């Protein structure tokens, strides 16, 4: 909630600063800047580069600030670390009371330390000392050294002077003490507003993990091998799907028999999400490479077939007529008119198919695999290695994005006439 509030505040502040500050200085002078109607004219809406930059920066800073990163100069209040103490008052069955102090030592996450050495003190209640990690809690084993224990009928009646009973909680210095239903004390140090590393590790620990597993590996494979295998499966599966799907789509676009024969199959398979096929493919082909590639083949096949079919139906009849009256044979019409004319459509399909394949491979690896990006994050999550999970997600996103950009570049290069007919 607080994070959302801060995020919105930064969004608004950045907008105001950029709008009335920076934009005034670096304003672009081109045709679009002269348009007076921009609200509602989609073509006049261009992404503000400052906004994109600040957006990424904001996410990074929020991440750093709420994980106590060393890379970010300001932090949300962190968990309490250090020594603190509180006193409890024990009442013996005969009504006698005695105070004892609990010395708590809160250690930073991951560090080991011993409790403080403390004098036992006088009276029947003796002082205690505990050591615990930040964000954790600890039961105070006061019965261990007290002369009158709860078994003897003694009970804690006050903490830091405030009366308590089983079930109540009391704020003490740097934490809270809860009295359990059995009458023992549970100390919880202040957690602050930062995230625990097992929920959200700091950016530097993610980066450190990248370095570590790109050299030492994780689950028998280095990071690059995991990513390589995922990409390899996507590319092989996609290529198989395209090699079968594109001719199939052409056949469906050119022959009534093929269209009639394959229409029911394609129309039926199209709405089945590839993820739903994972169990079947595992039964048929196991969790090895062939199973993954079959799955991705199926994911790409229908998309490519449908886009090739659409590419054929999209050809202007006058182009086909023109080619025939220039003396082209059927084969030449296919080769020089229908295929090039359908390329833009096929590229659009290929971009979609690549995206679907990339998503499917990760999901399939999450379910069962020996290697791959999805398997890496799944196994890591079982061991609560959140930094690996986070790193995996970021890299999966980066790779998916790069694939799309590469496809778009290839499209610009190979079908420059797209959208110009």
């Amino acid at each position: 909630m607080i994070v959302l509030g801060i995020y919105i505040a930064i969004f608004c502040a950045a907008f105001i600063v950029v709008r009335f500050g920076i934009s005034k200085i670096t304003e672009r002078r081109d045709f679009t800047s002269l348009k007076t109607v921009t609200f509602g004219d989609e073509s006049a809406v261009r992404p503000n580069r400052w906004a994109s930059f600040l957006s990424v920066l904001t996410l990074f800073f929020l991440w750093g600030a709420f994980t106590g990163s060393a890379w970010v100069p300001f932090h949300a209040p962190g968990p309490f670390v250090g020594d603190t103490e509180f006193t409890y008052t024990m009442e013996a069955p005969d009504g006698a009371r005695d105070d004892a102090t609990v010395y708590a030592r809160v250690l930073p996450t991951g560090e080991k330390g011993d409790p403080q050495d403390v004098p036992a003190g006088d009276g029947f209640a003796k002082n205690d000392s505990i050591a615990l990690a930040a964000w954790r809690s600890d039961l105070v084993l006061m019965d261990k050294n007290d002369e009158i224990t709860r078994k003897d009928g003694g009970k804690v009646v006050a903490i830091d002077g405030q009366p308590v009973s089983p079930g109540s909680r009391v704020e003490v210095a740097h934490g809270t003490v809860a009295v359990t239903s059995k009458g023992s004390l549970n100390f919880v140090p202040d957690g602050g507003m930062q995230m625990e590393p097992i929920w959200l590790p700091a950016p530097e620990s993610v980066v450190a993990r990248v370095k570590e597993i790109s050299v030492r590996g994780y689950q028998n494979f280095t990071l690059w091998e995991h990513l390589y295998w995922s990409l390899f499966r996507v590319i092989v599966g996609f290529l198989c799907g395209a090699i079968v799907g594109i001719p199939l789509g052409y056949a469906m676009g050119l022959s009534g028999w093929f269209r009639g024969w394959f229409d029911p199959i394609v129309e039926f398979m199209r709405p089945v999400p590839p993820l739903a096929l994972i169990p079947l493919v595992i039964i048929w082909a196991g969790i090895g490479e062939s199973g993954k590639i079959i799955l991705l083949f199926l994911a790409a096949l229908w998309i490519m077939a449908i886009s090739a079919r659409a590419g054929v139906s999209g050809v202007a009849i006058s182009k086909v007529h023109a080619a025939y009256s220039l003396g082209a044979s059927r084969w030449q019409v296919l080769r020089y008119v229908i295929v090039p004319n359908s390329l833009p459509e096929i590229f659009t399909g290929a971009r979609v198919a690549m995206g679907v394949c990339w998503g499917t491979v990760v999901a399939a690896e999450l379910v069962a695999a020996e290697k791959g990006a999805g398997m890496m994050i799944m196994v890591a999550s079982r061991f609560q290695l959140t930094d690996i999970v986070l790193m995996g997600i970021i890299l999966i996103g980066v790779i998916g994005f790069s694939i799309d950009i590469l496809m778009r570049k290839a499209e610009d290069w190979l079908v420059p006439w797209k959208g110009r007919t």
Partner: protein
Amino acid sequence: MTRARTDVGPRFLNADTLKGAWCRMSKLSINNLSMRFDLPNGSFVQALKDVSLDIESGELMSVLGPSGCGKTTFLNILAGFLSPTEGSVTLNDNAVIGPSAERGMVFQQGALFEWMSVRDNVSFGPRMAGRKKKDYMDNVNHLLDVVGLQDFKDKSVYELSGGMQQRVALARCLANDPDVILMDEPLGALDALTREKMQGLVLKLWKETGKTIILITHSVEEALLLGQRLLVMAPRPGRIHKEYRLPFAAAGVGKDLRTVKRDPEFAEKREEILSMIWDMEEEIMGRTEEAKA
């Protein structure tokens, strides 16, 4: 679909043949052509009824008529894209049964191949016929000169203006050296000035190549200028309403077309045909209103 060519003479134009030094005989005869489109709802449209016509080699014929009178259907049958429900078309005594290289077609727009350069578009026909590059390249370059696109031959067609694209389409058709050139509103999408220049170009190419040209247009002026013969068609059913033989095309070759248009006879014919088409349009409107009532 395609069949062997029976004509003789050089297959492809070159600089000399373009000068009008020769003329291949090609006679197009159209016999009792009828075309009926059966609609899925059980009714039908009689797009053409009993059209008969002979077109001699080297004739320039323009076709005019109100919208929907079957001009495009007529041309598509000549090109071989449609087979008529009745009647037949023969070219040099061979029945027309499908599209072929001897009947070239120039479309209104959008029939160029965007994925090819201007030059590849123009040389498409010879390439498809498997000709050697050195055999056709001179002719292609010559045609690019004729249509004034030598400087644009390496450009993509989508980089050209509408008028330039139509010139590419003309050159592409000519490079294939067809006997008959069919044009369906080839200049319909152009602005008035470009259109006038293109009309001059069509006349020039007609004179130089001696091709048989059949041209559909919506503009009465264009039909008069580019019609040695002018066919006025009437709708429902589509039929030949009236035929003219006009001197303007022959007179206009190589001249400023505006001087031809100033001819009093030209103005007279224009008025005559315009009112003829107006009457037809009014009749159609009347009939539709009756049908509604």
